[in-house]
């Protein structure tokens, strides 16, 4: 191998221990014979490998999970409100007062639930409650065809 090739390998596979046994052997053979490449390899190791090896691992701060948990909860609530709102406007567009009324009632209950029970501690209870309300909402909407598909129900409850 020529010096140029050796130097390229030194900078990549050799430095990163990604060479085969045979490759390693032939590189090291060259390094024992060629001063320029040997010095290059030594410098590469010193500048490009050593400083990184003593780097301490970085840890995510402890409070970060709470922030993320809060953001997930906030997003969940906003989606619920949005879906409820969409369902509500859809129902009125459907011109079927009987179904519209029942949906309005369900939606109001739902919104109350979303607003009143925000904390994760009450999540299970709230979820059961919301599930019930939503099932009702979805069933009552079945015949009014406001375009509620399984997909968005899945998206939030499955």
């Amino acid at each position, binding site marked *: 191998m020529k010096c140029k090739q050796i130097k*390229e390998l030194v*900078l*990549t*596979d050799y*430095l*990163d221990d*990604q060479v085969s046994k045979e490759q390693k052997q032939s590189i090291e053979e060259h390094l024992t014979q060629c001063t320029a490449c040997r010095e290059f390899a030594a*410098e*590469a190791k010193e*500048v*490009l*490998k050593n*400083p*990184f090896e*003593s*780097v*301490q*691992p*970085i*840890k*995510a*701060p402890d409070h*970060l*999970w709470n*922030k*993320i*948990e809060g*953001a*997930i909860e906030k*997003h969940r609530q906003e989606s619920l409100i949005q879906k409820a709102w969409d369902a509500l406007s859809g129902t009125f567009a459907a011109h079927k007062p009987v179904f519209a009324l029942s949906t309005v009632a369900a939606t109001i209950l739902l919104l109350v639930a979303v607003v009143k029970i925000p904390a*994760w501690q009450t*999540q299970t209870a709230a979820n059961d409650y919301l599930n019930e309300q939503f099932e009702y909402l979805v069933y009552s909407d079945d015949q009014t065809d406001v375009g509620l598909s399984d997909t968005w129900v899945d*998206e939030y*409850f*499955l």
Partner: protein
Amino acid sequence: MKPVALETITKAAQGDLYAFEEIYRTFCNFVYSISWRMSGNNEDAEEITQDVFLKVHKSLKNFERRSSLKTWIYRITINTTINYQKRKHLKTPVSLDEVGIEKFASPLPSSPDEEIQDRVNKLLSVLNDDQKICMILRNIEGLSYEEIAQSLKININTVRTRLKRAREKLLSLRKEVVPYEV
């Protein structure tokens, strides 16, 4: 890094927050570390990390088991980090002139650990984002060429080329800073 059980992934995808927290605990240090090294400060790193896990949370149900969860989260992390950098107009690599010898010879941080971090950050700051991410994944996170290629969706020779260019740059830089290091 302990692999996350399939059952945990399924549960988390179904909205189980405890399961999701387990995924978070497994990968948060990796995600934070990458974003911290790419952005260079705590606030941005926190924002990026939060963004990554919200994306993971939102898309977990679409996660295809063809790739490993690890590679998938790595990929989201890298994309989010690089896009964030672009948005913040930080993508332009700092030229040698801007970094300046002065900055490299700035007063040393208080502890030896900080000193090493500082030195590494300064070295990385002269690379462009593509080179920088390859260096971080290889030299600090210890990913193999294959893993880097998968995480970046590039081929292995591109990984090699980026590492080579990055390292050539660092070597040439070293020649300029050596007299000031002592």
